[in-house]
């Protein structure tokens, strides 16, 4: 049986925007002195959803980017890495960037994969640097 997956793309894009908005809201209200783990878990799970659903529908670039965020959020949630204002700022810029990518996908514009990869590498190295300080 053949199922045309493109019929679910619009639901996926809307879901991504909801996840990204939720990540932003929860991160904005996250108290760095007294981290609410449930909030952090919501941020983590939102990145996880974009990763999982993105891979299902063949949006590997967006999925991989979300995976990078998910991985670091998991360490923060586990308490292995302390979350600081600098971490928050990097996450905010990553959320903005990913929102732009999803918008391009929704508008069926070509996504610059090299730029996506470059951005992902820079987010990854920044978050790794912060994790080791």
């Amino acid at each position, binding site marked *: *049986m053949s*199922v045309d997956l493109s019929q679910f793309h619009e639901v996926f894009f809307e879901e991504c925007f909801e996840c990204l908005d939720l990540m932003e809201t929860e991160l904005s209200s996250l108290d760095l002195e007294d981290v609410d783990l449930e909030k952090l878990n919501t941020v983590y*799970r939102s990145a996880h*959803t974009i990763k999982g659903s993105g891979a*299902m*529908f063949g949006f590997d670039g967006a999925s991989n980017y979300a995976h990078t965020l998910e991985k670091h959020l998991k360490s923060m949630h586990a308490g292995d890495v302390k979350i600081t204002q600098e971490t928050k700022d990097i996450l905010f810029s990553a959320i903005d960037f990913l929102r732009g990518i999803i918008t391009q996908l929704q508008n069926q514009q070509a996504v610059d994969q090299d730029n996506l990869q470059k951005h992902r590498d820079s987010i990854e190295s920044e978050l790794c640097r912060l994790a080791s300080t």
Partner: protein
Amino acid sequence: MASILAVDDSASMRKMVSFTLRAAGYDVEEAEDGVDALQKAQARQFDCVVTDVNMPNKDGITLIRDLRALPQYKFVPMLMLTTESGMEKKMEGKAAGATGWMVKPFNPDQLLKTLLKVLG
């Protein structure tokens, strides 16, 4: 045709899974998380449960454990959909009572094939 409870907090995944199953002739009901699913599973009997793992309110592994504790779901096939290919989550799922699992991403055909296997 068998009745299936499809559980996922991701709307796009849920739509994709339920569309595929309905197109293959199954009678499908959707649930948004483990709490919603447990309630629906008690309101009517399903022949199979297909569930995501990472969900708010109640995750898939806890859902499977809770369902297995109910006499009417003791022997019902339960399929876990996970993004983790690692053994750890699979073993955790198996210990909770999962019949089988599928690693995302998968295509609709793979889902139907695996479902036929767990339905026996």
